């Protein structure tokens, strides 16, 4: 090894690099797939996420239909904060897509503002969720209480972890990650699109969780 690596640039062209490796097709679409690699990666990841949450929804159906008695979600849980959370998450989805659109237009200030607003919505969601959990726990409802609360805490807890993950990524992009905007705008904009796709998926899961757990 002489320290030279054969890599490919953003166009997929082979190039010699010294001690560094450049990931190909982060900006330009691959000719064979028609999309850039990061986008293909996030969709494959989201496909695995569908199966993860799908398994839990499948379990919920099985547990619910097998139970002689099933608690009414709207009597056991707290519909008002959950409805507010639905609105917060939907709003955050719009913010992130507006951030991406503004970055495509070259509007740094607006793009950054919308990403900050998305992060703020994430904090709002988690805060309301914590309040809701505190109400449930205060009433003596724990995961061990019954199957309803076991699946409720499992599904909303896992969803909350996903929200937290998205928030960490948004915080990174608002902080140290923003440097890329000044050096590789197209790549940075694609990164926002990728985290946006993840965030929309998290929103999508909640859209089904909300009526399934709280209203049925």
């Amino acid at each position: 090894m002489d320290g030279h690596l054969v890599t490919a640039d953003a166009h997929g062209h082979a190039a010699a690099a010294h001690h560094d490796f450049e990931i190909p097709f982060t900006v330009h679409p691959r000719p064979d797939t028609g999309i850039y690699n990061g986008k293909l990666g996030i969709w494959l990841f989201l496909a695995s996420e569908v199966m993860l949450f799908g398994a839990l929804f499948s379990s919920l159906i099985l547990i619910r239909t097998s139970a002689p008695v099933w608690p009414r979600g709207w009597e056991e849980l707290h519909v008002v904060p959950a409805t507010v959370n639905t609105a917060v998450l939907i709003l955050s989805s719009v913010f992130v897509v507006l951030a991406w659109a503004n970055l495509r237009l070259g509007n740094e200030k607006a793009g950054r503002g919308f990403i900050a607003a998305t992060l703020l919505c994430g904090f709002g969601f988690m805060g309301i969720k914590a309040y809701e959990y505190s109400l449930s726990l205060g009433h003596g409802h724990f995961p061990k209480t019954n199957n309803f609360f076991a699946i409720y805490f499992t599904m909303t807890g896992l969803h909350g972890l996903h929200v937290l993950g998205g928030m960490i990524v948004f915080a990174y992009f608002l902080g140290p990650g923003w440097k890329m905007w000044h050096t590789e705008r197209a790549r940075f904009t694609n990164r926002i699109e990728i985290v946006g796709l993840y965030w929309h998926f998290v929103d999508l899961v909640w859209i089904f969780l909300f009526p399934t757990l709280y209203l049925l």
Partner: protein
Amino acid sequence: MAEHVVATDPAVPETHAHGDDHHSPEHIKREMRVYLYVLGALAVLTAATVAARFYLHLPTGQAIALALAIASIKGFLVAGFFMHLLSEKKLIYAILILTVVFFGILLWLPVHEVIDKF
């Protein structure tokens, strides 16, 4: 709008689809208006979901069907417009079709179990 790279900002290279208007500022601004319409629709549908639960007093089966129908419409709006699945590349559709098939199997298993009981 399949692969999105900034083309309106002169600092960013345009990568593909020369000649189409998907990356023009006018197109992006049009998209932004659509996002706001979708937001309005999602807000109305969320309110409808909650209202249906507390004001319609439907039997359980109908309530489940209605709630899942509204959730599916909301899901379509998010996936179609925010995730741009209405105009994606074939490879993404192929991945999603495979995912939907396996997701369907996952949901079919317990439903099949329930049907067998009756």
